[in-house]
């Protein structure tokens, strides 16, 4: 079995920037990307604030320059291109390379615009292509030349954590040498209205881990990492930017949408990740929490963290008040943020928080912290269907 899984590149587009550098600028400047809805055409335009990628579809088409694909495919493609550039990859055929993408709704942002005409006007005959989840993976595999291993995972809001986990396992088991892993989700009327019916959207900036939190802000984005085996890194004399050392996947088995009060699934996912990483909980320097800003999540996750760390919870924050909740992409977005935290020795704050949560004894980092050695980061992601996943990244 291969022992080390290296991250050799990363790429990201989200509300706080269209590249890794822009993302770092926003994070280190404590600048949120959440604001009034500009690009999504919805009845709720003036009701909710969201984290949109600050580019129109036409601008994305032109920036990508590969054809008239939908927003989902374009965001993913652009993030992957940045990650490949970052990793110094031009040729993917020199090693066994795979693509593990993830999404919750695929091209539904496009499907919802075509739906009526398809059924009423009998047009848009190729409608099915924006309906299926794996289509953006197919498009990207074709664009970057991956012909063998390409797959799509969908485990709700933990999707890209599982994509990263699968990529790491494929390298450890010597099935692939290099895997492009991550996730993408675009804002759509489908998800905005869906979360609205669940009454877990805040109409103002979300306040993760605040006593008076009212819900989440939706976001959109794509983030991908290039994972490579130790042999590949050595062969090409690469300088990795991080390692994936731990991962755990568990099911809360409590409710279709809600988390258990004690965070049983979350705790189990963290425990499994530590077992794989072979490090002690006290070695973690920072936790990038799932921290959506809903009453249920932050309480359940907080209790699980308190149990996991036995009263000595490391510095933690949720960065969803920067990006919004990017659903399937969120774990990959936060993997990029976690790596930036290690690279720059900074802990990015939990924005908008004012009041201590009564049912927790722990308090997140509220203000940017600089010059903090960050060698190990734990990142949590949870989703509908009880899906809980935790990842541990190492600086070296």
């Amino acid at each position: 079995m291969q022992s080390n899984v290296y991250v050799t590149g990363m790429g990201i587009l989200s509300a706080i920037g269209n590249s890794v550098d822009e993302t770092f600028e926003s994070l280190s400047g404590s600048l949120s990307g959440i604001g009034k809805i500009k690009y999504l055409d919805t009845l709720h335009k003036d009701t909710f604030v969201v984290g949109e990628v600050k580019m129109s579809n036409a601008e994305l088409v032109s920036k990508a320059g590969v054809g008239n694909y939908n927003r989902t495919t374009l965001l993913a493609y652009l993030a992957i291109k940045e990650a490949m550039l970052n990793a110094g990859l031009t040729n993917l055929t020199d090693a066994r390379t795979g693509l593990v993408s993830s999404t919750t709704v695929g091209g539904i942002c496009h499907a919802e615009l075509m739906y009526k005409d398809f059924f009423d006007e009998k047009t848009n005959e190729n409608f099915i292509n924006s309906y299926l989840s794996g289509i953006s993976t197919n498009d990207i595999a074709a664009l970057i030349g991956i012909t063998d291993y390409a797959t799509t995972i969908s485990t709700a809001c933990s999707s890209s954590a599982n994509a990263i986990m699968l990529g790491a396992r494929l390298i450890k088991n010597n099935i692939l040498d290099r895997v492009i892993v991550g996730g993408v989700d675009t804002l759509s009327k489908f998800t905005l209205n869906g979360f609205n019916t669940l009454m877990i959207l805040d109409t103002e900036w979300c306040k993760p881990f605040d006593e008076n939190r009212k819900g989440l802000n939706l976001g959109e984005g794509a983030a991908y990492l290039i994972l490579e085996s130790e042999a590949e890194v050595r062969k090409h004399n690469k300088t990795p930017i991080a390692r994936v050392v731990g991962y755990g996947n568990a099911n809360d088995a409590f409710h279709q949408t809600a988390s258990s009060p004690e965070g049983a699934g979350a705790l189990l996912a963290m425990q499994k990740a530590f077992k794989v990483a072979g490090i002690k909980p006290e070695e973690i320097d920072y936790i990038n929490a799932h921290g959506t800003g809903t009453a249920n999540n932050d309480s359940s996750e907080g209790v699980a963290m308190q149990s996991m760390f036995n009263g000595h919870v490391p510095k933690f924050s949720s960065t969803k008040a920067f990006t919004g909740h990017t659903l399937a992409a969120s774990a990959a977005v936060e993997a990029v943020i976690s790596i930036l935290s290690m690279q720059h020795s900074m802990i990015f704050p939990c924005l908008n928080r004012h009041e201590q949560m009564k049912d927790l004894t722990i308090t997140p980092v509220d203000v940017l912290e600089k010059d903090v050695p960050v060698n190990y980061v734990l990142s949590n992601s949870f989703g509908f269907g009880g899906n809980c996943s935790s990842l541990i990244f190492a600086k070296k």
Partner: protein
Amino acid sequence: MEAYINGMACIAHHNVIDDQYFFEDVAEMPASNNLMAKEPDYKAYIPAALIRRMSHIVKMGVSAAMMSMKKAGLSQIDAIITGTGMGCAEDTDKFLRSVVYDNESMLTPTSFIKSTHNTVAGQIALLMNCSGCNFTYVHQNLSFEYAAMDAMMLLMEGDAENVLVGGIDENTPTMYELFRRHGLIKLHENLQPIWQTNTSGYVVGEGAAFFNLSDKPADNCRAKIAGVKCLQELAGSASLLQRVTDFLTESLTMLSDIDLVLSGNCGDAEMDKRIAAFNTDCERPIGYYKHLCGDYFTASSFAVWLAARIIDLQQAPKVIVPNHTIKEPIKNILIVNHYQDKQYSFLLVSAR
């Protein structure tokens, strides 16, 4: 990588949950271009109060999972991994339709909650109180294959002894319309036996097949999955025969060891060109299965179930092998599947 099949269950167009049934009444011509699943009496597998809150795909998936667990004699499982090409199509469509037609107002959360692709895996975990690993693959025609590969990898890693893996897809009126208008579905008047067609389109199906996989065979285990390979694209000049031969070499088998090929011909003359050539070139007995279950993204899970049944019974239904006789013993069955001449997959099912 290999995994023993210690239990399995299938829901498909025919009465396949009956252990005595083996396609005796099926004709070579598909009866329709739309093969809906024959639903079991769900009350036998799912608490009555939950049934009416479950959509078609969830009911099929959960009950097939429960039947498989029962066959394996297990009440607990270490991991649940599903594959679904379209996910919860009925609930996704229900919510999407109301967003579009009711102009984003007066919506209720029920169908949104149930629209996520991992609903079946989540519901199984909830019913069995299973906190183990839980994954859902949604990669069209390769969804089940990737689920099976993950299950086999989990067994190899030693993190699980028993994994429940399944493929599920539902055929809804909206989905049928989507595929029909895209020109994918065979017209009723063009129905022909799928191995000798000159028309376009395939027969649509749906179903659920679940398997209890383990690294150790149970006493009643008869078959194992001995290899899985997915190809996103048949790239370059390598022929299908060459790719199959490579796969079998990786699985430590040779083409001459294959007693039966279950070929994924869908009945679309153009799309089946490459697989038809393979069927001739490989010089092995060929069986077909998509006139039994129809074509859907996880039809290969039906094929694995069929292969394991054939190995168990040591005979193949007459209606799947029109031109061949199969020599006993039947030890190795190769499944070759494709969708629209893309996303080919190979599965090797062998006697334990």
